[in-house]
């Protein structure tokens, strides 16, 4: 992995300067060269899943071709090598969120599983009937349904902190929702629908002052913000690989070491044990305790390369670039008649949700698609938020590091076409 990582980082660093060279970065993403319906692809759905740079694709192929075997068990060369690569990826994930120890990094199959792991394991070990879990109105279904399942099985109470009409989340809303029975605040770090960035440090301060733990759903935030779990002070942080330019089928759960150590296992199987007899089994220490079965080996390694890639481009530089394109998009879309931006919180990143008077988001998305513009239309797996906003659906254009002002221009031009058709 050292030569792999070294080479990809060095390649990408070749283009690094003080300002972000978006053209150079775009050249790393093979899919951006293709056309769709006779138009250059304008990919504005990175909040759903980001495209992959060739550094990630090449590295994964190379692992399969030169270094693949199952991990943690074999005494032969390839297994040792695969294990080393897999564990290096864990170290990269640790560095990415600045966890204290790599024992605090659990690989999962995605962000959803990371949250379900906390609900199932922390829930089973530490939450009992009447204990409260607080979420917010803007959660993705994956940070709602696991708690409802726990409500069914353990009798916990689910409380909901309100958002403002512009999509902002104020710390006072958490103050109002939290009570002495609150044991956990499970909340998004950034909204997938509105782009709102939530005040994570303040949320943690309030929760901890009330004796509650905090799980941050960082599936959207991890790729746009420079996340430092020690600085934020959260107890758990979940994110997914495929939204940070890595492969899918890999996610990360950061959990404070003492909590992970005290939590019961999530799933049972190989990898997660010390000793098994029919009478009694002793479990491995974290993170192995939470990684039953053969893990997503190559996806984890691919994720590590994606994280290297982001570091080599410079996360701050990427964030500044995206903020600039977002501001341009807000301004261009804001000038379109009968278009309403949904989600205008002062602190937001990389997501442009909107509705057009009289035209359903699905019809908008179909017309945009025919112009090569890929956006998402629908409830974005956040139906309670849609109900809160009084909307059935929105159109969502979301940005990645490869997004440009030209992408916004193409979106606006395609929206003209929508108006042409629908009047």
């Amino acid at each position, binding site marked *: 992995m050292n030569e792999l990582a070294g080479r990809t980082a060095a390649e990408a660093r070749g283009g690094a300067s003080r300002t972000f060279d978006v053209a150079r970065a775009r050249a790393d993403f093979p899919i951006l060269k293709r056309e769709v*319906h006779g138009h250059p692809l304008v990919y504005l759905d990175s909040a759903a899943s980001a495209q992959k740079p060739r550094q990630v694709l090449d590295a994964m192929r190379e692992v399969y071709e030169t270094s693949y075997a199952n991990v943690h068990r074999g005494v032969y060369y390839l297994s040792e090598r695969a294990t080393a690569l897999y564990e290096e990826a864990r170290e990269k994930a640790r560095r990415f969120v600045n966890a204290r120890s790599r024992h605090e990094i659990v690989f999962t199959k995605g962000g959803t599983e990371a949250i379900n792991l906390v609900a199932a394991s922390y829930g089973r070990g530490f939450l009992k009937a009447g204990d409260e879990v607080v979420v917010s109105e803007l959660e993705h279904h994956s940070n709602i349904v696991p708690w409802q399942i726990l409500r069914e099985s353990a009798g916990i109470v689910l409380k909901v902190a309100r958002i403002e009409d512009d999509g902002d989340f104020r710390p006072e809303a958490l103050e109002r929702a939290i009570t002495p029975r609150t044991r956990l605040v499970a909340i998004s770090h950034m909204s997938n629908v509105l782009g709102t960035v939530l005040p994570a440090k303040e949320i943690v301060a309030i929760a901890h002052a009330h004796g509650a733990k905090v799980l941050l759903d960082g599936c959207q935030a991890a790729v746009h913000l420079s996340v430092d779990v020690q600085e934020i002070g959260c107890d758990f942080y979940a994110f997914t690989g495929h939204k940070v330019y890595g492969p899918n089928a890999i996610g990360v759960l950061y959990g404070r070491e003492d909590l992970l150590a005290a939590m019961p296992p999530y799933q049972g199987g190989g990898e997660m044990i010390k000793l098994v007899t029919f009478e009694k089994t002793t479990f491995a220490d974290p993170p192995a305790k939470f990684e039953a079965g053969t893990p997503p080996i190559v996806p984890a390694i691919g994720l590590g390369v994606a994280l290297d890639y982001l570091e080599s481009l410079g996360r701050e530089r990427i964030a500044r670039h995206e903020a600039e394109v977002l501001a341009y998009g807000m301004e261009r879309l804001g000038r379109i008649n009968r278009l309403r931006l949904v989600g205008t919180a002062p602190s937001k990143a990389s997501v442009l949700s909107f509705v057009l008077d009289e035209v359903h*988001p*699905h*019809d908008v998305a*179909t017309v945009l698609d025919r112009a090569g513009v890929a956006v998402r239309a*629908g*409830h974005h797996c956040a139906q309670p938020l849609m109900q809160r906003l009084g909307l*059935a659906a929105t159109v969502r254009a979301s940005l990645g590091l490869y997004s440009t002002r030209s992408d916004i221009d193409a979106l606006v031009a395609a929206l003209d076409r929508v108006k042409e*058709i629908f009047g």
Partner: protein
Amino acid sequence: MTDDLRELYQEVILEHGRHPRNFGPLDHPTHAAHGHNPLCGDQIDVFVTVDEAGVIRDVSFRGRGCAISVASASLMTEVLRGKTEAEARALFESFQGMCTGREEGGMGASEEDVERLRPLSGVRQFPVRVKCATLAWHTLKAAIEGRGEVSTEEDEDAAGAPAPTPGQSHDE
């Protein structure tokens, strides 16, 4: 791009989408059902009055959705009045065939009725939108069969569309 879109969003569709016919509940329907498409959140209620001879005397709907789903529901209510349940079923089969580009099946539907639904046939170039066009029909079927609810995802039969194959009408 232009031709596909023009064929999908024909004037008839746009007009029915903006001004749906038979919109609103019936006073005393003999059958009703709620349909929804969990993928997009579209919701529809269909109300039907069937007489003792099995003839659809009245049919209406209410709901929210895209231009395709609203226009399809509207056209459906227009074409179904006075039809027997068997004729309605045959028409649905023909319509499904039309939407998916497989025009077999639906024996027994009158040519004239099928033609009235023809404006929706443009949807066959847009595989992911076929469910929008068929939601109202699935809901009608559920109502007549005495099932109160239907989802485009829970009923194999309700899928309507074959899974879009890679490249099919995505590449040009």
